[in-house]
């Protein structure tokens, strides 16, 4: 298989680490050679955080080149625009959870909040297909990542990955009640 690059972005505290680790392990269970890297350190405190996953034997560095992400996954609207503008590959897909965590300049009144229309416009110019996810009946915000995962699976956005691969990957990383609750969202969330 040729290379398939997945660029994940969110705000520190949104649970991007778990999401990327599930995708990484699911891809491994599906037989893809995998390379990945996450943001750690101070940026996790409310800054932009990024995870990068690369599938395929021809992927060497874990870091994706600009404009080469086949799939951009964002957990927040501003971050969706940030990633699409710089990282998305023409013809690729953006999946984003449409929530807003206002960045500092917006909260200070020095800058404008990014609109869903601005995300759509950037996608159009980049020739990227946007998929907006929003689930109103989630038990808690920290499960938005599972709703996004459900969308990735149902739309078949990552080559070769089946439900069983995702479910096994989740069981690698979680147990008991936490596993059950996350699997329930993954299987039942209405992701549009």
């Amino acid at each position, binding site marked *: 298989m040729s290379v398939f690059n997945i660029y994940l972005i969110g*705000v520190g*505290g949104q649970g991007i680490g778990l999401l990327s680790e599930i995708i*990484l*392990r699911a891809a*491994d269970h599906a037989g893809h*050679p*995998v*390379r*990945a*890297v*996450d*943001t*750690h*350190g*101070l*940026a996790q*405190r*409310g*800054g*932009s955080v990024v995870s990068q996953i690369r599938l395929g034997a*021809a*992927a*060497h*560095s*874990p*870091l*994706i*080149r*600009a*404009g*080469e992400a086949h799939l951009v996954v964002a957990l927040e609207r*501003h*971050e969706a625009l*940030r990633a*699409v*503008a*710089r990282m998305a590959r023409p013809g690729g897909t953006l999946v984003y959870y449409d*929530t*807003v*965590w*206002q*960045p*500092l*300049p*917006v*909260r*200070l*009144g020095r800058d*404008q*909040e*990014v609109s869903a229309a*601005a995300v759509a416009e*950037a996608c159009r*110019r*980049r020739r990227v297909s946007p998929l907006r996810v929003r689930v109103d009946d989630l038990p*808690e*915000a920290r499960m938005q990542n599972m709703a996004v995962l459900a969308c990735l699976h149902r739309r078949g956005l990552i080559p070769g990955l089946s439900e069983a691969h995702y479910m096994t990957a989740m*069981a*690698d*990383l979680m147990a008991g009640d936490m596993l059950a609750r996350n699997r329930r969202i993954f299987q039942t969330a209405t992701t549009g």
Partner: protein
Amino acid sequence: MKAMGEMLLRQESFSEIVMGNTALVRSMVEAGTRVITAYPGSPTPEIATAIGSIPRQRRPFYFEFSINEKVATEVAFGAALNGHLSTVFFKSVGLNVAADTFVQLSLMNLIGGMVVVLGDDPGANSSQNEQDNRHLARMAYTPVLEPADPAEVYRFYRAAADLARKRCMPVILRLTTHVCHAKQKVAFDGWRPSEPDNTPRFDPANGSYIPLAHMVAPKKTRALANLAAAEEELAGLNTRVDNGERRRGVITSGLPYLSLLDAIGAAVQKPDILKLGLVYPLARRQVADFLRSHRQVKVLEELDDILEHEIKALAFDEKIDVEIVGKTDTGDWIGEYTPDKTAAVLGSLWPELVTLPASAVEAQVPERPPQLCPGCGHRSAFFAVKQALSRDDITVADIGCHTLGYLPPYEIGQVLACMGASTGIGSGLALFNDRRPVVVFLGDSTFFHAGLPGIVNALFNRHDITLILMENGTTAMTGHQDHPASGRNFNDVTDVIPVRQVLEGLGVKNLYETDAYRQAELVDLVRRAVADDAFAVVIARHPCMLKFTREQRRKPDYRPRRVAVDPQTCDRRHVCIARFGCPTFSRGPDGAVAVNPDLCIGDGSCVQTCPVKAISPAKSS
């Protein structure tokens, strides 16, 4: 669920997806490392997370977080003198702290062997600079191995440990941020635990371990002999990629090697590559062979031009007719050699070999710098301190989460250098200065790490400054490691060393303390401390709320709490959002203030900031 601790001790061979930091721990287990020490700092704390996943009783080694990198190095050094294979790890700039001890190691007969694991940070992802520690390695005659990915971290540590033990010397394993944090599937060997040998084998006859003048020359001779031996024994970690190209070659190492492979992925005729695993000393024979067999060689080297100089000198000495191209531009010295950066660097020499990075679509996206968490005691402290200070006052920050105070709306901490430096810098700023009060900040973990000498100096030399000690009970920025005032070390319960009592014991007379949430009281105390005609300390304490909230969430009876803003009462003065600055508050297009339920933890530290009392605890839903 896969248990990391069980995996790290598995006796049969296996493959697993791990990050570089985790692969390192398995390698330490297999190598028979007996003593491991560290001080937390990105990109290395996850090494300790992996260690902590092994129950203490089952760990085949002793581990501690020491109070700073120098002490950590000394503990590992002492253990090696007793015959134990030891390892110390810390972040890039940690080597500056450890340097006084570190530079002695290669001069000593370390009978157990010692590996120094460095987490360098090209690109300064989470460090105050991007210093290239190969300089210090060279100064200390210590060999350096540089893995490119987790599989090599695993293999290279073993090689480092083997040589360190065999020749009773120190060896450096130099990791970089995206090697520590890279993840891939690694095939691990089996592990056969051996009966530990706890015999204290220290013998002065193995030395000398004393820096007597007449011993300096023989010790240095020994270090240089070990370095020469490393060149022979570790050169096997270098690999030559033959693409059948006799005109062009690239010499590189570490993660830039992987960047190179990506950057030239589409090239029709790829250059030959010599990938160095041993970056110091240079494997001269291999490098000379490579130079001789190419007409033009690019030295693709992240950060400084150390390899470049050695390779050019080698070509000169060996009279090799080759064009060597190193750094050609200031930008070549700066930043991480990502695939995009590597393509740009290589493209300036051989444009046809690389594809340049795609340009971005124009989009206005507000920056998102890191923020103090909702409920953070530092926010309350900064909000109060700002009220107590005048515009002209000089503020100096130290390392820790409170560095984020430099951002708006607080803009406190206009100078920041390195661990423990704030009090000393502030003392200097106070000289010949009776007009602009100097206020310095320090966290409680840094207090013990390197903060004490500056404080003792301020007392000893009677510097008239105010120190605000931000006590949150943990080492928050690097992932909540315990420190001497926590009452726990990495392994067990221990006696608390209370910050306040230490200060009292030192003789601090102007000493004030309050919870940072008591903002009005804190304003008053800071004003009094600044007015004092002597060194004064204000302890602004509040537990780290990120740690606290995580602990609360694990409890079965956990109930989320929030605040609410009453839209009728709110007069849109925006103190909560624009001056207190909690990220929980958001601003509507009409200026209305809302609470983001995904972020609010209901700590209530904001309630007192509202001039019209529009904020109140929300009724539980």
